């Protein structure tokens, strides 16, 4: 089978010493980024893009994906030891993980989360391997109308699933699309919203936006927390870094269940690691014979969510690689990286550059093994990082952000853009407007408009093309479903709780 040849060939790509090195570097940096507060994988990947300009794209992407799933491993370390999620998706791990740490079982919690992450992460990559080819073959049938409805679905999914207020998520999405329209319109050559600023003619670079919205804004929030006097107590790691047989038995099924939940949610555009870990937690609590233990140090509450947030990374790579649609914030940045290297992810990627895509997927198997080693015996290194004072770390992150933005074009005007995005990101965080939808729509905005106009050109300005094919109709139906979901869910819950009461 041709695909099997490609998969094996991919191993020969990712096992090259240089790519092994980049896998390791990505995993290491990812763990560091996951452990450190104030910076996350999206910002980390965005900051690395200018540095990778001269590199072979395969190696660069291997490193970036290493950062992506590596951060999910690292985030649990802070969650367990300081009760602060180092990464948003580790938020559920703080609940039972920190409680376990307080009871002296920090080693067991850390070990469980590392093993859960490894098992689910590897299973997730297997899922990615299995789904990649059929999905990319189906994606070959996608024309501009199908791509537009797919992106539309991605945006509606992000809007309804991101946070409590779909209205605010929608505002964030539309604002991102609006920012994406700034610049010279490619199809007509007309300048739009450039306000006489020459740097805006190429539009607002998404790297600048991501660094501002995620890195700079995150630093602002952390600095504000420091001023408020928010202090966290670090628990010293003592005892063995392993778990008892009983704990293992209790964690096994949660790991598998978490892996499935994580992978499925990862494939959905818009839903990310945070939702995956929340759903896994809820499921585990429901399946448990001792639900009252949850919140007091139940190991299932660590195993499940940690498995989920790692399987989610593999799931998020599925739409990115097969369709060119990112599954979330970090994959949106990776899509931007692909575009910068001049590579178009999607079905053609599997046909034209199987070495790149399978080299990337196969590197994830290796990466998960490396991360297991980094997070078990070598975890002491990363725990040391927790002792760096934030007062030193935050300014350093700002300086690194400055380098990252300046490195793109050497234009100080772009630094100011970044700062503006930083302030916007800070304000949005304070008023509960989610940021991920804006990044998603910033990256997709240009392509979305192109697809829209191409489809309309093909159909001669007839909007019926968007319901013209089975794929389009399915996607439109899914979009409608996701728009209605926030309104339906509370009613469904009430109906189900009501029927349970009467049962």
């Amino acid at each position, binding site marked *: 089978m041709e695909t099997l040849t490609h998969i094996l060939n991919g191993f020969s790509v990712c096992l090259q010493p240089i790519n092994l090195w980049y896998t390791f570097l990505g995993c290491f940096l990812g763990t560091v980024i996951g452990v450190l507060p104030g910076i996350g994988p999206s910002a980390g990947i965005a900051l690395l893009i200018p540095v990778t300009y001269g590199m072979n794209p395969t190696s660069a992407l291997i490193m970036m994906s290493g950062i992506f799933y590596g951060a999910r491993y690292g985030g649990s370390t802070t969650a367990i030891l300081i009760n602060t999620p180092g990464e948003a998706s580790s938020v559920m791990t703080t609940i039972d993980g920190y409680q376990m740490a307080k009871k002296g079982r920090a080693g067991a919690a850390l070990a469980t989360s590392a093993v859960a992450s490894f098992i689910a992460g590897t299973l997730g990559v297997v899922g990615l391997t299995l789904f990649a080819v059929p999905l990319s073959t189906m994606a070959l049938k996608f024309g501009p109308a199908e791509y537009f409805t797919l992106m539309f679905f991605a945006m509606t999914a992000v809007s309804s699933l991101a946070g409590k207020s779909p209205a605010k998520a929608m505002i964030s999405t*539309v604002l991102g699309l609006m920012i994406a*329209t700034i610049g010279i319109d490619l199809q007509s050559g*007309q300048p739009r919203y450039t306000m006489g600023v020459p740097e805006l003619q190429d539009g607002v670079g998404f790297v600048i936006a991501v660094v501002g919205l995620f890195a700079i804004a995150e630093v602002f929030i952390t*600095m504000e927390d420091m001023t408020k006097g928010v202090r966290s107590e670090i628990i010293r790691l003592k005892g063995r870094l392993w778990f008892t047989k009983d704990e293992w038995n209790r964690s096994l099924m949660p790991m598998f269940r978490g892996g499935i939940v994580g992978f499925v949610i990862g494939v959905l555009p818009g839903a990310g690691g945070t939702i995956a870990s929340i759903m896994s937690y809820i499921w585990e609590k429901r399946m448990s014979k001792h639900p009252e233990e949850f919140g007091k140090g139940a190991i299932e509450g660590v195993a499940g969510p940690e498995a989920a947030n790692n399987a989610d990374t593999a799931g998020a790579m599925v739409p990115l690689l097969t369709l060119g649609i990112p599954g979330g914030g970090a994959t949106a940045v990776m899509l931007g990286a692909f575009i910068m290297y001049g590579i178009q992810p999607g079905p053609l990627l599997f046909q034209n550059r199987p070495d790149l895509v399978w080299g990337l997927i196969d590197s994830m198997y290796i990466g998960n093994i490396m991360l297991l080693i980094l997070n078990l015996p070598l975890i002491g290194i990363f725990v040391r990082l927790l002792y760096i004072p*934030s007062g030193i770390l935050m*300014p350093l992150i700002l300086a690194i952000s*400055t380098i990252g933005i*300046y*490195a793109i074009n050497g234009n100080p005007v772009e630094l100011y853009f970044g700062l503006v995005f930083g302030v916007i990101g800070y304000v949005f965080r304070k*008023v509960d407007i989610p940021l991920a939808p804006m990044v998603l729509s910033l990256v997709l905005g240009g392509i979305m408009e192109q697809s829209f106009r191409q489809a309309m050109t093909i159909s001669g300005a007839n909007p019926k093309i968007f319901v013209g094919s089975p794929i389009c109709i399915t996607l439109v139906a899914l979009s409608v479903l996701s728009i209605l979901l926030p309104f339906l869910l509370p009613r469904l819950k009430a109906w189900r709780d009501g029927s349970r009461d009467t049962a």
Partner: protein
Amino acid sequence: MMTDRVIFVCTLIIAAVYFYATTLIPSLEIGDPLGPKAFPRLLGGFLLIAAGLLFLEMWKERKQRTPQIDSDEAGIWRHGWVIVGVSVWTGIYYLAFERLGYILATAVYLLALMAWFNRGKWVANVLTAALFGVLSYLMFVKLDVNLPRGLAAFSWISDGVLAVVNAVINVIKSIRASF
């Protein structure tokens, strides 16, 4: 509640400004049946829909809200002045960035921030600020990333650092070669 109202009003303002700016786009409409203004107009429409949704949410919340003590709405901005200060200082850093050169500008920038957020620990702060400036400059020059040398009076810092490092590397090379 209050912040949501502010968001609502700001959204309407942004939609209005965007619609106005859309009319400023020159239009040719050759070939492409839609032209450069069509998609933006759609977006403006969606923004208004989003504002409408927000209004609905605020209305629903008002109906459900029990008259308890309101969450401290103005209070969430109480520490905002710190961020204003940091932003202004960062803006100054960017202004001076190319003139002072990367190393000096960054070291001064970092030192001030660390002096504020990591108070009292002068040794750690000075060391970190200076070392970060120098080491990151070297690393990025090696990676072929362009960082400002600094104009006129200040370029000697960057050039000096590079010269010292290159000299050290040459010395090491010649020691190795003589074996």
